C-alpha cells in the first residue's frame, strides 16, 4: 500500500489548503455592513424588485481558459515520460500540438481575453463602430427592422 501514500498526502494537503483559505478570508477581510451599503443605488428610488446579481463573468472566462490549457498537459505528460524513445517523430508531433495550442493562445491575447480589469471591453470593437453605421441606419433599425416580433428578446 506504500505506493498510495503520496495520494493520501495530496488529499490531506488539499483539505488543509481549502480550510486555510476559507479561514483566512473570514479572519482577514474587513466586514462592516450596513443597510444603506447593501441596498443597490437606483437614483434615489427604492427598488421595487430584486436587482440582478452582479455576475463576475471575468472569473468564469479565466477559469474556462485555464481548464483548456490545463488539460493540454495530459498530452504533454506522457510525452515527457518517453520522449527519448519517440525520437524526432515525437518531437514533431508535440511541436505541432504546441503550435495549435499557441495559436489559440495568440487568439486569446489578441482578443483581450486575458486583459484584467474592468475598463476594457472584451474584443476590440472600434469605438466609432462601422463605417456603414450612420445616424439614419441606426434610426431605421431602432424604429422598424431590428425590433423583435413581440418577444422578450431585447437587443443589447
Amino acid at each position: 500500500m506504500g505506493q498510495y501514500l503520496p495520494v493520501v498526502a495530496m488529499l490531506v494537503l488539499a483539505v488543509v489548503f481549502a480550510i486555510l483559505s476559507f479561514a483566512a478570508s473570514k479572519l482577514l477581510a474587513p466586514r462592516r455592513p450596513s443597510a444603506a451599503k447593501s441596498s443597490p443605488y437606483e437614483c434615489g428610488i427604492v427598488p421595487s424588485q430584486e436587482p440582478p446579481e452582479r455576475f463576475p463573468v471575468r472569473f468564469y472566462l479565466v477559469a474556462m481558459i485555464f481548464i483548456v490549457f490545463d488539460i493540454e498537459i495530459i498530452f504533454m505528460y506522457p510525452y515527457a515520460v518517453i520522449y527519448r524513445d519517440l525520437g524526432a517523430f515525437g518531437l514533431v508531433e508535440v511541436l505541432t500540438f504546441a503550435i495549435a495550442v499557441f495559436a489559440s493562445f495568440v487568439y486569446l491575447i489578441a482578443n483581450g481575453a486575458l486583459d484584467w480589469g474592468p475598463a476594457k471591453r472584451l474584443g476590440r470593437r472600434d469605438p466609432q463602430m462601422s463605417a456603414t453605421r450612420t445616424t439614419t441606419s441606426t434610426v431605421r433599425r431602432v424604429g422598424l427592422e431590428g425590433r423583435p416580433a413581440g418577444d422578450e428578446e431585447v437587443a443589447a
Partner: protein
Amino acid sequence: MMLASTLGPTPYLVLGAVLFTVGAVGLLVRRNPLVMFMCIELMLNATNLTFVTFARQLDDVGGQVIVFFVLVVAAAEVVIGLGIIVGILRRRPGATADDLRLMKG
C-alpha cells in the same frame, strides 16, 4: 491492483454502469445548468472507468489511452458549456434550464 485481481471485472463494470445511470438521471431531474454539465461529466467518467476495466481485462493498453482523449474531450465540453451558460446568464441572470423555453412545439 490486488483488489482487481481478486474481484474480477464485474464490480467495476457495474459501478461504471451505476455511475453512468446516476449521471443520466441527474441530468433528467436537475435544472441548474451547471449541475447538468456535471452530470454529463459524470457519465463520461463512468465510461472512462468502464474503458479502464475492459483494458485491464483484455490486457490492452489501448483502452487506457482512450481515457486520455475522453478527458480532453470532457474538458473541452465543459469549457464550451460554461461559455454558453455565461452567455445566457449575462442576458438572464439566474436562469435555470427550465426557463429556457422560448421555442417549443
